[in-house]
Structure formats: C-alpha cells, structure tokens
C-alpha cells in the first residue's frame, strides 16, 4: 500500500452543551498520513487546538477496534463515513485524498440529544434493553451447557444478530430516526434461541413500547439502516420483529 500525506478541510459541528444551538466550524488539517485512522486525525487536530488555546472537539470513542460501539460520527451525510460495514474508528485516511473537504456531524435524532459537539446521549438504548432485552435466568440456575442442542444454522443466525454493537448508526441514518434495526436485532437474537423462547411474547411487546416511549420514529422500510450498519445486521430482522410483535399481540394470554 502506497503511503501519502494530505491537507484537508474539516467542517465540524460544535455545540457547547445540550441547550446550545450549535454551528459548524471550519478547520484546516495539514500533513495527514494515509495510514492514520479517522479518529487519529481528530486527535492531531485536537492537540493543535489545545496548543492554540482553543477548546478541543468532544467525541465519543473508546476501544478503537470497531467493537465497543462508542464512536459515532456522521461523516459527509453517512454514519461512520464512506466505507461499507465499518465504524468511525476503523475508517482510515486512505479513504481520502489531498484537498478533500469533510463534513462531520453528531448523530441526529430526538431520542439521542447532543451532549457536546459530536457526543450524544444514547441511554435510550439501555432503557430499551431494560424493558425486555434479556433472558431471565438467575446465576447458578442453569442446566449443563450441552443439555439443549441448538441447530447450528439457528445458532449462527442468533450470533449474527447478537453482533450488534449498539452504536446507533441505524437511527442516525433513518429519516424517521427509527430504532427498529437495533430492537429487531436483540429480539431476533433471543427469539432464535430455545433459551429465549419463554419470554419472547412479552419481550417483543415491551421493547417496542419502550422504543416508542423514547421518541424513536416508525419504520418505513427504506433500508438506510442496513446500508450503514457496521456489523451488517440484516433488515430481514425487522420483518421477524414485526411477526414476533403481531403474533405476541394475537396470542398473549394477558
């Protein structure tokens, strides 16, 4: 891979706190190496801002390995930037060339209020999980792990849905700010496993109710969520969620 350096123009959303109106600021970043990650480019810009006595840009990040789900930048109109199946932290600067202008915003959704600059509050996702995204089993209760065989294909599919990192890109990409992909991944993960079966009706109903309560929008099947999901969670899960929800509504004995 050839390495090269580039100069870039960044337009970054700055917002002091949740009550501030916020606005774009423009920055020039020089000598960015094509080997850097996108966040390392922000590190360098922040170091410069601090030296100049200015306020550095606040953004969420932690593992920088694409797995914790903390990073959340809306880059040139796309959550996590131009690469397919990728998180912001794994985006590398060889995606860009000298002279490019890059626009960076926070996730924008009513249920994800901005805390500062590019950092948003995603605690709504925790509350959705609290409403039913688990299997009720106390520590020490279980039977032997191999007591219930699970069809490999089903286990693999459950795993594919459990791969969701809860970053919220699906919500950010959706014109309705719907959280259906996130909720459907969790409902599918647990509904596909025999262990999740006893609670599946309540789970589907309660998680949807909490999702609505948090202020996420409805799903209109545009598929934007699937297109940007860093873990390639399939939109077919939304169909499964709908069927789980319908069936639960029709058959629940409550």
């Amino acid at each position, binding site marked *: 891979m050839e390495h090269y350096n580039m100069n870039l123009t960044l337009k970054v959303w700055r917002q002091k706190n949740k009550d501030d109106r916020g606005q774009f600021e423009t920055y020039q970043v020089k000598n960015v190496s094509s080997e*850097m*990650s996108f966040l390392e480019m922000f590190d360098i810009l922040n170091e410069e801002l601090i030296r100049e006595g200015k306020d550095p840009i606040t953004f969420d990040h*932690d593992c920088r390995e694409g797995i914790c789900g903390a990073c959340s930048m809306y880059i040139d109109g796309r959550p996590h930037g131009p690469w397919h199946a990728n998180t912001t932290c*794994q985006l590398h600067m*060889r995606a860009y060339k000298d002279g490019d202008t890059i626009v960076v915003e926070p996730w924008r959704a009513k249920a994800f209020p901005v805390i500062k600059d590019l950092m948003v509050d995603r605690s709504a996702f925790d509350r959705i999980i609290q409403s039913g995204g688990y299997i009720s089993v106390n520590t020490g209760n279980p039977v032997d792990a191999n007591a219930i065989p699970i069809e490999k294909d089903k286990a693999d599919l459950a795993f594919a849905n*459990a791969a969701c990192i809860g970053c919220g890109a699906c919500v950010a990409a959706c014109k309705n700010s719907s959280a259906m992909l996130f909720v459907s991944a969790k409902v599918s993960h647990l509904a596909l496993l025999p262990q999740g079966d006893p609670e599946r009706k309540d789970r589907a109903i309660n998680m949807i109710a909490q999702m609505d309560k948090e202020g996420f929008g409805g799903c209109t099947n545009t598929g934007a969520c699937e297109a940007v999901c860093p873990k390639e969670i399939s939109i077919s899960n939304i169909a499964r969620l709908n069927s789980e929800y319908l069936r639960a509504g029709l058959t629940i004995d409550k």
Partner: protein
Amino acid sequence: MLNSRIPAGPLEDKWTDYKGHCKLVNPANKRSIEIIIIGTGLAGASAAAALGELGYKVKTFCFQDSPRRAHSIAAQGGINAAKNYQNDGDSVFRLFYDTIKGGDYRAREGNVHRLAEVSANIIDQCVAQGVPFAREYGGLLSNRSFGGTQVQRTFYAAGQTGQQLLIGAYQALERQVALGNVIQYSRHEMLDIVKIDGKARGIIARDLVTGQLERHFGHAVLLCSGGYGNVFYLSTNAMGSNVTAAWKAHVKGAYFGNPCYTQIHPTCIPVSGDHQSKLTLMSESLRNDGRIWVPKKQGDSRRPSEIPEDERDYYLERRYPAFGNLVPRDVASRAAKERCDAGYGVGTSKQAVYLDYAAAIERYGKIECRKLGIENPSADVVRKQGVAVVKEKYGNLFDMYEKITGENPYEVPMRIYPAVHYTMGGLWVDYELMTTVPGLYALGEANFSDHGANRLGASALMQGLADGYFVIPYTIGNYLADDIRTKPIPTTDPAFEAAEKEVRDRIEKLMNIKGKQTVESFHKRLGKIMWDKCGMARNEKGLQEAIVEIQQLKKEFWSDVRIPGGINEMNPELDKANRVADFIELGELMCKDALNRRESCGGHFREESQTEEGEAARDDNNFQYVAAWEFKADSQWELHKEALEFEVAKPSQRSYK
C-alpha cells in the same frame, strides 16, 4: 507476612468447604445492604447482576456512556472451561495445572483451583443467558485450543467472544436495573474511596457530563475497573482504560500486588507511525492455524511470496517443537523480539514477523475438496475452498487487519509484533477477593490474583466472570454478615466531606497549572519510558534510569500541563489529566517492583537472569513470593511479601520444547 486466608484442607476441597462454612446474610437483611461496584466489564457486570439477584441494593458506575462498552467487549479469542466436552483428557486439575504453570509458578494454588472448578458453571450460565457460542452441526458446543495448553477447552463466538459474554452479563445487569435492584451510573468516574473507621464505606464520583462531584455510600465497595496497560500509552486497551480507581484505593491503603507483571501479547498489528493512538490485537486463536516465520537471511527485503519455503525460519516450531506456534504469550513475544533485534524483522519498520495462513488455507481446502468429492482439484479450487473455511473461522479478524493496514491477509501474510495487552498485577486481594482495606474488594483484571506472572489465553474472561458470578456472591456475605446492623451512613459524614474536598482541591490544582504541554504529550512520554525500560526485557540500569525519568516527568506534569475548558462541564481533557497523573505514579511503582524482582518469570524478563539458551531463569529460592506494595507517601512504598507455597503443582523450569 501477608495472610491470604486460604482455607485449610486438601486443594480440591478448599472451595467446597469454604462455601459450606462461610457466613450468610438472610434475604431480609440483604435488602438493606448497599454495595457499590466500579466498572461494568465482565467482572463488574456479572457481580452487579449476581448480587442484585440475591437482593442486595447495588449501584454500578462506569465512565463509558453504557455499561455494555466496557473493554471486556474487545476480547476476541475465547473463554476456557474444564468441560472436557472433546474427550481429550481435560479436567479441573489440568486447567488448574496449566494455569499455574503458564503463570510461571507465581500464582496461588488455592485461587487457581477455585477458578478451574467454577469454569464449567460459567459456560452453563452464559448459554442460559443466550450467549451464542460457536456450535457443531450436531447442535453441541464447539471448542478450540489456545497457547500453553494441549487440549481443546476454549469456547468461542467467532472472533468476538468478549462482546458476546459482556452482552450476556450486561443484559443480566439491565434486568436487575429494570427490577429496581441496581441503579446504574454511566459517564461517571470514581475519584476516591471513602473510609470510615478503617472500612471502605463509599466513594466520591464525578459526573463526567456536568463535572459535579457526588458522594455515594456503600456497606462495601467492589473495584472491577480493569487493568493498567495504558501506562505504556500504546496498548491494546481502550483509550479510556485507566488505573485511577485502583490507584485511589492504593493510596488509601490497599496494597498493590506484583505491579511489574504485564503481558505483552505476541500477535498485534505493528506500529505504523508517531500518530498511532492505540494498538490492535489479532486474536491468539490465529496461532491455531497460522504459522509464524521470518526470513532466514538478515535484512531480507524480498516480498514474502518471493521467499521460498527453505529460506524461511519458522522459529517457534524450530525452538519449541512440542508446542510450536502455541507456546504461551510471554515466550512467543520474546522470541519475536529476539528475531527482530537480531535483524530478521520484516516490513518497513523491520519490527514485525509474519503470521502466515497459506498453509492453513491449503490444508483446509484439501479437506473440503475431499468432503465434497472433488477429485484432483486444481490449486485454485483448493484455495477457494480453503479461503471459505478460514473466512468462517476468522473472517472478522482478517477484515479488521485489512481495514487497518490496507493489505489483504488472504493474499499476503499478516505482519505482527508484540504489544502491551493485559496486566497480571493489580490490587492485592486475599482468597475472598478483599484488599487490605476491609470492605474493599477487587475483581477481574483489577486484582492480581490468578494469573501469576503470565496469563494464558482465554483465561481473562474466565476469571472476570468467575469472580463476579461465582466467587463474590459467597465471599462478600462472609463480610457483610457482621455488618447487618450498620445503618446507611449519611453522606454528610465528615469523612465524605474530607474526601470530596481532597478531590476538588486536586482538580482545581490541575486546572490552575495552565502550562504549555498537552496531557497527551505527557502520556506519550511516560509510555516511551515504560516501553523502553520496563517493557519486554528489563535490566537494573534501565529501571533505575526510568525511575529518575518518571520522577522528573511528574514534576514537569504538575508544573506545565495545559488543560483547556472548565471544571463544571464535559471536559475529556480534564478526565484524561486525572488519569495520566495516576499513571505516572503507577509507572514509578512498576519500575520499583521490576527492579526488586531480580529474576525472570513469565512476562517479567530480567536480562540479568536467563539461561544459556536465552530462556527466562526463575529464582525460586529468593523470589517465590507475591510483592505487595504499601503506599507510604509520595514516591515511597513499603514492600510486604506473601510467600507462595506449592503443595500440588511443584515448581519446575517451564519447558515448552
């Protein structure tokens, strides 16, 4: 001498006897007892869930925006358990023995045996929670092997086992939140322990969004705050991973055990430049199928594909035929460093070795063709089939490698180099996981207890969940049973006020320095000192220099650091400054500990102590002890020793040949 309070009796009966005789707290009393848990990784989340289920009133704290993002999530390879599902000779004893030996005879037998005993329960628990482990076509669980073992006992979920286990524990935790048993505080950082009458009775935490300091009472406090690998600046840890909670506890009286024991993981993506903010691990599971090599010729600059088979040095297979590419991490790391230092390294930096999948792709391809009945397959067909198998096993790791380096690892061998990954050292705890401060516990990577001087792969997840799900629920009752009459102490108590004032003064002091250098630049300089002088190989002269350099750096930090922004607002630079200040103090202690330990053991390689073949030479006569350091005053510590006794696994020179 420190008392580890290991129960008497035969090794295999200790834990059973303990559980049969420890004190219990009845359900009605549990409801009025409050427990504070710092950190929500595998240890913290599992402890919070288990204690919430028992009926205690629990509060959890994490600096991330959600408990689910704790760095346990990044663990890739797997989790060990002595299930012997593969019928290949595994047992509780063998897992115990491998762990003691892998730790180079520097861990406690009692703790490690308990860990091996509860390992099987962990897998049962996780499966019941819906953790989607890899399975065979018959529907039963699949296993693979990891370094330092000769059986297949590692359970896994592709290359993201940590994520799946953490989500399981997180979901159990969120269930307890929903049931009202746990209150969770995210974007909060613990900045001090509050002690009353010598016991841990609460914490001072800072809300990272508003900058406000908060006081929280607890009958007991559990530190599940992870390891301190970020003292090296570059490590595989998350950017936010820090030692602050453990360090505050240390300053308040908790001894620090074996701080110099750090694990340098052999298979990480090499450093690419000065901009580097962290290093990325390539799972140890890759050593199951990958072969590690360097050119036989020094400074060979040919492309890997141009180097014929007989001009390649598969140095691990050559030096350690019995374990080959699956030697423990410390051995593999040192061997890579040795080759690179001797001038055989590859890549532009020459600080890398190859991890090659060509042979595995061919081997799997041939098996697949046989399965599919393809006769005399062409090389292309074999390759295609082989790539598909490798993709299923390791696909996400290969994708990650390509994103970071821009190279396709199915086509060209990966370049890897060792990087700081895990810290075996941590707060000293007794058998009950209690530190030297009564009521203050440390679980998971935050304690020092189970891995000795080197941790085997797939054992960190095991220990975190063992401590949280199956150990602390018993041992904490033994302490709290005497505390049922203690009413919650109001946080207006002078001890809370004093602790809060101390925290406030320190933050103000930091903000008022208004110097010229950024927090990040100090952290980088500390990391360089630590890596150069307290890294993969240490010697007396280097360590003495490092101590002086760190003391110098500390002075400079406290007189010239620049922190922008204000106190009562979201200010990540201030959060970082708080952490780096603690890392600097820890760095000094690590060097002191490394200097004191004039032997090589596990991850701690003292150049003065090696065999003629360059292997690590342990000194059991003088150093068969845990070094537990008591904080006395700034830059002053007193060494306490806990002698290690081996009744069952008799120490021998580790050999993987």
